[in-house]
């Protein structure tokens, strides 16, 4: 029986202009296979078993179990579970800087009450995005925590503006 490999991979859609075909890549690092970008040299391709492919969200990290293809040209992902990262909420209030960074994995959202951009200054929009993320652990609680912090930052920012 072929040995199964456990690793984390992101999948993309549209290989060879076939819109629904999901694929990812792995490369050997320190003796074990790890998910990698397409630009990596000495990589092998990973396709998704058709039994699970309908549930896969492109560009999201999955914990997968892989089996080698018969021709050894790559691997097939037989199972895939979304990797959820803990959300970290970091608040800074210093001089004229009033902002919140919400990070999880390599994602970062910023709340900045002084920004002209809606994606940065709208508490409700940011909270909605956080609630909708599949890769954020305790997404609902993190969104509520963010709102609590954002209200504090907004109040302090407005306080500072009125004192200038």
């Amino acid at each position, binding site marked *: 029986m072929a040995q199964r490999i456990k690793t984390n991979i992101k999948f993309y859609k549209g290989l060879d202009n076939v819109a629904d075909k999901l694929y990812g890549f792995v490369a050997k690092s320190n003796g074990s296979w790890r998910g990698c970008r397409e630009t990596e040299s000495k990589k092998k391709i990973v396709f998704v078993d058709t039994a699970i492919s309908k549930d896969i969200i492109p560009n999201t990290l999955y914990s997968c179990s892989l089996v080698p293809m018969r021709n050894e040209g790559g691997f097939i992902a037989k199972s895939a579970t979304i990797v959820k990262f803990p959300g970290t*909420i*970091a*608040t800074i209030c210093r001089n004229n800087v009033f902002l919140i960074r919400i*990070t999880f*994995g390599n994602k970062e959202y910023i709340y900045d009450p002084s920004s002209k951009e809606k994606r940065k200054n709208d508490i409700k929009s940011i909270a909605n995005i956080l609630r909708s993320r599949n890769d954020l652990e305790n997404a609902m609680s993190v969104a509520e925590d963010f709102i609590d912090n954002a209200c504090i930052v907004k109040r302090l920012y407005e306080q500072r503006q009125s004192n200038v």
Partner: protein
Amino acid sequence: MNTTFKIQQIWQYLGVQDDEILIIRHYNKSDDKDEFLVVESTQEGLKVSAVSTLPQLRADQPFQMIQQRDSSGKFIIPSVTQLINDKVSDY
């Protein structure tokens, strides 16, 4: 990894300045309640005090605050190593 070391790492990771305070929200398992660790820079190093409510915050008092929940939803002191590893693994 002990608490003091984790706090020192967070202080450096966030680039907290000496005139700022750092507030870390975390769950105190022995008391079964959330508390806030207030960290200040002193001549003797970082001074940590635990308070049960969020200190009063003012616009003229610079501060940084950090919080993270674990998989069970409890607030924990974030691990800087974990933050960096998560960033790298989510390629």
